[in-house]
């Protein structure tokens, strides 16, 4: 972070803060299409960008500061392009909101690999805060319906928002597992901890062999034995042999309904 900031020091030194009159003069030139004036306006407001980026980085340490700074600059550029001096505000007042918006948008995008609208994060934060308050006040976790009703949104929306903000980790991320009673710590990746649900080729062959043996065994049954097993376990149809393989109660009711 120090290295990045030092690279900006020269730029800040070369571009002191603008006075109100200078701001207006530059804004007029920018409106007329002067690229140099635009550049000057951007470089003169780097202080604001760095200050805001630092402030947000304090609460979001997991984010890369240089990326946060770049995003803040994008917000500044947007503010420069849209600034209207005739409205009477200082540029820093106007730019501040654009920079904050760019930072918040970046934070929102970085929060999860699932991209969601910006207001979803606000809803999530409100819901989490409300859950904590509810728990401390009433002593139990509120249901999704209660939270949704309090926030004025549908339970489905709340569920979708919460589902979209689940923590996603890389399959190659390291997982540390401690062996009980020992200080030894094993490190392995997430992928190594996931169970392989596919049946191995060897197991498949064993299953096939077992199935074949079972089929051969079934052929040993006499027709009478097979019939009794089928009747006992409901392996019959009423389609062709109603005498030997009777219909079920449901089927009878259906038949009666049709006739009536």
């Amino acid at each position, binding site marked *: 972070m120090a290295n990045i900031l030092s690279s900006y020091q020269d730029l800040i030194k070369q571009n002191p803060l603008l006075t109100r009159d200078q701001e207006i003069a530059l804004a007029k030139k920018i409106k007329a299409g002067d690229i140099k004036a635009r550049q000057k306006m951007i470089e003169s407001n780097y202080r604001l960008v760095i200050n805001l980026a630092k402030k947000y980085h304090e609460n979001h340490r997991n984010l890369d500061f240089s990326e946060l700074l770049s995003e803040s600059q994008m917000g500044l550029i947007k503010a420069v392009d849209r600034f209207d001096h005739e409205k009477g505000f200082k540029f820093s007042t106007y730019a501040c909101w654009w920079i904050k918006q760019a930072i918040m948008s970046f934070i929102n995008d970085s929060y999860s690999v699932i991209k969601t609208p910006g207001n979803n994060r606000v809803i999530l934060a409100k819901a989490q805060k409300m859950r904590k308050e509810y728990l401390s006040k009433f002593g139990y976790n509120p249901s999704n319906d209660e939270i949704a009703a309090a926030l004025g949104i549908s339970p489905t929306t709340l569920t979708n928002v919460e589902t979209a903000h689940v923590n996603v980790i890389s399959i190659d991320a390291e997982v540390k597992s401690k062996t009980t009673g020992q200080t030894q710590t094993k490190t392995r990746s997430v992928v190594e901890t996931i169970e392989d649900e596919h049946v191995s080729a060897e197991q498949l062959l064993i299953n096939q062999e077992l199935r074949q043996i079972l*089929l051969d065994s*079934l052929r040993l049954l006499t027709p*009478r*034995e097979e019939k*009794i097993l089928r009747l006992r*376990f409901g392996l019959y149809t009423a389609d062709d042999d109603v005498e030997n393989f009777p219909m*079920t109660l449901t089927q*009878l009711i259906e038949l*009666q309904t049709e006739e009536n």
Partner: protein
Amino acid sequence: MKKNMTIQELRDAKKNVSVVNEGGLSYNEISEIMTRGGDKMNHSNVRAIMLKSFMKIADHMSKEYGLSHDYNKLLEIAIKPDFQESVIEILDQEINKRKKK
């Protein structure tokens, strides 16, 4: 319709067709059907035949794996619900195959 009708009542109610619960018949109901088909037996016989069938399958399978189980061991295997379910599942698939042919 009465909820707990006997099989006889149900048969009389509709075209002389035997009616059963979903999923399978009781030993009594099976014995009735078998007797009506000319193979006279009671519920006890039905149960014995069913167990004998499962034991026959268990015996054949164990021999295929080089094992020789006595009567008690075979009976123990035959009455296991897991074993019965597996056999019935394969039998069901086999019946469906036969139907398609």
